[in-house]
């Protein structure tokens, strides 16, 4: 079975009563999220409340960790991505991911893109593909003279943009970003944030961040995650447009958190 490509659904990714388990431990409880097309959705919250865990279930990366399982439903264009006949490889092809620590392949800059598109059967001009992808990631001008140097020879921020270029080279619909700027300095962070604004025209982006200013700056929607009352399991306590979350939160805990009064 192939994934739907239709854009009829207003929401690209939806979760319905999603519980996420590590073995018998329920890490995330009862998440209902709707990720809007061509928008940036931020997931914020304190450490250890399950933000990254939640993000990884959106493209089934969670299955690469031992003993994980979910209850509930995650849909992509209305289709359950955990259905038996769905291949997780295809899910990850349509829903790309950028990680917290920049992780270019230990290959040349060129080959980072080329390998990625080649495994998906890309037949067109490779030079064009590499140039386009790097340009979209705002990296082309910095690396065009050293395409055959190692991806690891770049600075942290450049490496992260290379990872973004690699992710968008195969034209996914959604890009998941797990704290993409947390290992970078403010200037590199700014570049990534500017890039996100550009990418939003063509892609749907979900970003996990520790940095509330970043969420406020880049995102259209924000999901606030927090541990439940018994402090055992994370959940989304509030989900709304970003300016509403930051200026007029409904939940007291959200207000405490975004205003820095969280104790």
């Amino acid at each position, binding site marked *: 079975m192939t994934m739907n490509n239709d854009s009829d659904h207003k929401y690209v990714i939806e979760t319905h009563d999603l519980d996420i388990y590590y073995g018998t431990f329920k890490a995330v409880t009862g998440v209902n999220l709707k990720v809007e097309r061509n928008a940036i959705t931020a997931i914020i919250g304190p450490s250890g409340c399950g933000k990254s865990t939640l993000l990884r279930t959106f493209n089934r990366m969670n299955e690469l960790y031992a003993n994980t399982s979910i209850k509930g439903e995650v849909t992509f264009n209305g289709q359950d991505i955990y259905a038996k006949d769905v291949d997780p490889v295809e899910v990850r092809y349509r829903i*790309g991911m*950028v990680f917290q620590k920049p*992780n270019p*392949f*230990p290959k040349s800059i060129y080959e980072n893109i080329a390998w990625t598109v080649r*495994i998906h059967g890309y037949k067109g001009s490779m030079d064009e593909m590499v140039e386009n992808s790097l340009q979209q990631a705002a990296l082309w001008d910095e690396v065009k003279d050293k395409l055959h140097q190692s991806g690891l020879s770049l600075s942290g921020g450049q490496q992260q943009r290379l990872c973004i270029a690699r992710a968008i080279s195969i034209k996914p619909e959604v890009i998941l970003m797990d704290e993409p700027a947390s290992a970078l300095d403010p200037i590199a962070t700014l570049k990534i944030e500017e890039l996100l604004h550009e990418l939003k025209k063509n892609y749907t982006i979900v970003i996990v961040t520790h940095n509330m200013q970043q969420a406020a700056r880049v995102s259209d929607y924000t999901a606030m995650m927090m541990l439940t009352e018994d402090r055992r399991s994370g959940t989304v306590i509030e989900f709304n447009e970003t300016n509403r979350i930051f200026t007029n939160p409904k939940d007291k805990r959200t207000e405490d958190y975004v205003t820095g009064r969280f104790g």
Partner: protein
Amino acid sequence: MREIAVVEGFANNLDARNRRGVMWHMLFQASTVVGIIALIALMLNIIDGAFGYVAYEASVDPDSLAVNGIPVQDQSKEQLVALLQSKLSSGAYNKLNNEKPFVNRSQAEVYQLVVDRMIRPKIVGVWNLWPSLTQADEIRATVAKDHPKAELDFVSWLTTNFIVRPQTSEPLTAGVRTAILGSLWTILFTILLAFPIGLGAAIYLEEYASDNRLNRIIQTNINNLAGVPSIIYGILGLAIFVRTLEALTSGEVFGLVDPTTANGRTVLSAGFTLGLLVLPIIIINAQEAIRAVPRSLRNASFGVGATKWQTVWSHVLPNAMPGILTGTILAVSRAIGETAPLVVVGASTAISFDPNSPFSKFTTLPIQIYQWTSRPQDEFRSLAAASIIVLLIILLSLNASAILLRNRFSRRF
């Protein structure tokens, strides 16, 4: 010494802590020194045996073979061939001619045959390097007194001739070519069996096998197998390769008629037995190398929609390869030095023809060394010392080439 401010409630024990550190430092250094001394002693012992004085007597006086005043070594090839033909039995002469026709042999080669077959020097005394250096005069005096006709030479047992000659029962003409070729053939089949299977098993266990009871039992048993004494693998090899699969290991299924009556005690059996022996070591090392590939790299690959196999082939294996090769180098080095399992599998102790196919009888360097050291005559111990040097050189050069190969792989971005 500067006074250290002591906070109340804490003792000033920095000196004591430093002293303890220095003590351990010296202890560790001492253990290294012990190891190095042992190694040097070993090397000296080997070198001591491989060089020294040899006294030998000719069984037939070479002067008696001179013709018209021309000493035997200056005679023409034709004269020497005629000499051989007249003095050797016709069977022995024809055998030599069959091995390599006399027309194709040079004068030097024929002269060597005359020396080996007719003059037949016999060793009457052997001295190690140390006495040869320190008591040369006494040695000369002893030889002159006990064996007035003997010739005394300072020799190196390790010569080019020693390496290129086949095994014989005469210490002066014995060589290790048969054993070197046997070792190389054997190790070839060891690698052919153990590397692909070991790597395959490691990939399966690390990347594909789920964490269940069965796989944990398999894993534990592989770890245990790595510690099984090698002679037990010899018995296993004897049962499987020599007996059960005799038709295969003797080449019968390939239509070969076995003229050497190896009955399955062939290069192939030996190589596969050693292959089984090192298989667990290769698996464990490869698993560790694969496990050391960082998760972030796997994530990167899966994150762009690569399949498991694409991830393993393009990222995990290239990154694990240096480690896998290091493990294989260690395992193969061990296999080259193994003796016990090959004794059980049926290494030949005395063969003079080279192994030339997987179905040949074989001997290997360690077997040859073992056999020579168990002889009562001193001269064979010198031969063993020379073979040990040959074995070490082969081992080191195989390791060096494997390390070069590994460095090529690890020249990464």
